[in-house]
């Protein structure tokens, strides 16, 4: 089941590029790019680090398809 994310959206809010985002969470620019494209699901540790940067719960950034449908309905 694919893991969706709003990482690009949140990244734009704080005006950082992928390389800067990677430096903030200890990942490479390539990994941030892979996550945003949905080609890679981050580990729990990385997902938590990303969420901490934006000061939001992990579920606000990463979610499954079912959650997206629920979010849409709301």
């Amino acid at each position, binding site marked *: 089941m694919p893991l969706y994310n709003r990482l690009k959206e949140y990244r734009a809010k704080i005006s950082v590029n992928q390389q800067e985002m990677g430096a903030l969470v200890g990942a*490479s620019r*390539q990994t941030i790019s892979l996550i945003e494209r949905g080609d890679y699901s*981050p580990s729990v540790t990385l997902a938590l680090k990303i969420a901490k940067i934006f000061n939001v719960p992990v579920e606000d950034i990463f979610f499954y398809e079912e959650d997206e449908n629920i979010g849409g309905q709301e």
Partner: protein
Amino acid sequence: MKTQNNNHAKIDSPEYNKKSKRGFIIIMIISLLLGGFGGFFGAKTTDLLKNDIANIGKFLTDNYPLFQVRVMPWVILAFTIICFILGETWLKKAKKQILTWDGEDDEHIEIADSHLNKVNSISSILMIVTQILFGLTTYQLMSLFEKTDNSCMFEVAVIAYFAGLILAISQQNRAVKLLKQYAPEKKGSIYDRNFHKVWYESCDEAERQIIGDASYKTMRFMTGVFSTLLTITVIVGMFIPIGLLCAFFIGLSWLIMTCYYSYTCAKLEHGK
């Protein structure tokens, strides 16, 4: 998730296992029949073509030294030059993409990455192929000098071989330097003996997963390659004197790869 679980249940079912077993037995029987008939007709054909095979063998033995000194050095030189030109072209293209990168646009870096991967591939190919070609050139070197008087061509081979190695390493070094411009977290010097270890340690989880997946796929692919090559050399060796070492070294390489893979998996499973 439900569909995935259903698929796993199907693959694990006794019916699927029975079907797979049937297919496996059929393939074994067909292989046995092909091997049996192939061996029988191969032996018959070898008997009929005994003289032709011997003549081909003699032709190769008599003329290979000339091929070694007159053709092989130029082959190594040409291959080195072609690979070097290709590598330089891709390095230039990668550099152009990196210089025009605004720090945000993915496309420039994806293109640069693709070019740098090509540089690494071509330089690795250059190193390996020049070693193979040099080995073919220096086959029975001592008796070669007795049979021919073109020793200066051998010097061309030596120069081309070392030039190939040096140019390949130089291109790999420049590719690594360029990559570090847009991936500064990467560590390691190409001249360091532990370069691969240091580089791997500077990779993050996604990059390590890619390396792991690629390694596993390579291992599976090489298992097929080794098994095919071993089968071919054993069968050919029954009819043509290709030497004992072919099958031995192919089998040995396969064995080492398999054992080391199993050992590494066990080590990683136990958290080491």
